[in-house]
């Protein structure tokens, strides 16, 4: 096996030391240059021109004209982007599961009410003298508003609709995933399990602080 020479190692160490020193010097120079730009009072155009002549490439003249704190703002924007990209820190991504739940809940509610989309099947009586076609209404809730409505069902469905309405208000206010289901669940339990009717606005107001 061949070993490196001791002279070579010394040379490399010296080179690295000199490089680090030069980098430190450059940093100091840069910091001194940035400190030269006044932060509180707007700079005079003459000074800027003189400064730009001395400045390196990475500071643009236009940025300095528009805002003296351009570099700091850029950094802030980058930080914001990083925050948005990072899902662990919250944002829209954190609401997505809740929105998914909402969509599923709406579909479940509609399905429970009998909504099945556009009907594709009809009942047909091909008679001898008369023929009749009958189609189910898209939703059982379509009965609401006619004279044949069951008052009990009407009240129930109205409450549920109001619950959803207040739930959306609540969702918009709190942005807390999971908690928004509480008024809906409590309403459902009260109506269907305990058979207690509490006006929805009142119930929803109880949960409003959340």
């Amino acid at each position: 096996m061949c070993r490196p020479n001791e002279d070579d190692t010394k040379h490399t160490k010296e080179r690295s030391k000199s490089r680090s020193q030069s980098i430190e010097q450059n940093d100091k120079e840069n910091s001194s240059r940035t400190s030269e730009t006044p932060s509180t009072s707007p700079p005079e155009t003459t000074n800027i021109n003189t400064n730009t002549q001395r400045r390196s490439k990475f500071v643009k003249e236009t940025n300095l004209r528009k805002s003296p704190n351009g570099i700091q703002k850029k950094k802030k924007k980058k930080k914001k982007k990083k925050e948005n990209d990072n899902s662990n820190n919250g944002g829209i991504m954190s609401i997505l599961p809740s929105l998914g739940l909402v969509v599923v809940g709406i579909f479940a509610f509609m399905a429970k009410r009998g909504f099945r989309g556009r009907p594709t099947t009809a009942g047909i009586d091909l008679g001898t003298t008369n023929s009749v076609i009958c189609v189910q209404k898209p939703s059982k809730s379509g009965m609401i508003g006619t004279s044949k409505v069951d008052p009990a069902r009407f009240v129930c469905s109205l409450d549920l609709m109001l619950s959803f309405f207040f739930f959306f208000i609540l969702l918009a206010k709190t942005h807390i995933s999971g908690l928004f289901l509480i008024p809906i669940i409590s309403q459902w339990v009260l109506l269907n399990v305990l058979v207690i009717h509490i006006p929805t606005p009142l119930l929803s107001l109880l949960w409003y602080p959340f």
Partner: protein
Amino acid sequence: MVSFLNSTELEALLHSDTPAKFSTSNLPTPTKLYEHLISDIQHYYDIVLSIPNISIQSIKDQYESLKEKALNSHERRTPMNVYVGTKAKKRMDTHSKHTFYHSKRVIGRSHNDPSIEELRHEVPFHVQHNLTSEEDEYYNMEQVVFHSTESDYVSPITISSHILQYLIDLAAQFSPTYSSLSSAVIAIPAEFTVYQRQATMQAFARAGIKVTRILEEPTAAALAYGLDQKQGVEHVLVYDFGGGTLDVSVLRISPDGFVDVMASSGDSNLGGVDFDTIVGDYLLARDEAFMLKQEKDDDHNGLPESALEECAAKRFMHPCTETGIRTMSEQFKIELSTKYSDLIESSSLSGSLESKDDEIYVEQSCLQHRPSDQKSNDCSTYTTHTLKLTLAEYNSATSSLYPRSVTPIRKALENINMAPSDIDEVVMVGGTTRMPQIRSLVSLEFPQIQELNTEIDPDLTVAYGAASVID
């Protein structure tokens, strides 16, 4: 029991050859009627509450405003156009040989079936053996065809497919929501054979409709009233008195809600049309001299069908021909039944009924052919003739049909050794069950039944039941 006639009258009507007179003097007392109305209202709301799944929209109901009161299974075929439904029926008077109907009576039947011969004598168009069809009778569904001319013929399956396509189009026109209808739950008579069922399925396939489920018509009628879920109901009698046939079925509903047809009986030659035919014959015989004159004028003038049709349509009346008077007799039946029912209801509420059968009457005018000395085609030269028919005349003319209308009930019950008292519910289906006389006769057969199931429009009941089982 809801009976507008007393037992003596009904028995006399059923068991005697002499025409019985219907009298409105034996109506329920005001107290009884009040109870009947109350129970009726309760029953009405019972249905809504106990069967919440009845959220069915009837296209027919919605189209009443558009004068599409009924979708009649009549079809007129021309080389260019096919008219279906009410349009075809309106042209029936003047295009009788080109208007095909009663296709259901012969669909899927063999050419040597007795019903084919029967139909030949009833309809003005030609019913013939399809000589161009395959020789294998077992697999050929189009052995019988309807001819308007020698070269122009159509099979009952094709007629049915036109009607079905029209129904689907009508639903799509009603609302875009129903534009994607492509499948159907269908109802067929319980006594249909395998070939008749296959032919019906073929008609649906030809119309581009996929059949998802097949129900028997009496089963569908029972489902429409939710009797499969009603407690304490085991045996149901479905009385289906339609335009062409009378079918009586006894159903057994198991505790699990399964519905079986135990027995069925019927009269394939008795329907609402027969009432119209008899009344038409009566009117023609009564006004014999007038009709002879009409025929003579008709022969002399040789009027084209289109001219008479045009004038009749313009003046909103039927022509005074044999076909026209037969069509008018159906309207006589409907109007008399309505008047009779309304009179019973109103007079019972007031507690007195002064009018007699002779005082209940309907009048209609028909368009006479122009006199032979007039050559003008102007519609104003045509005169009108007024026909009047009293309820007494109507009942007298149709008296021979009433005993036949209850015979299938007794036969069906005898076949399974059941007594009328074993029946828990009776469902009335078919337009002819609107006649108060028929309702009274059926009620008399089942004295233990408080009220017949008549709340749903009898023309729509089967379709309601079919639609109610859509998943």
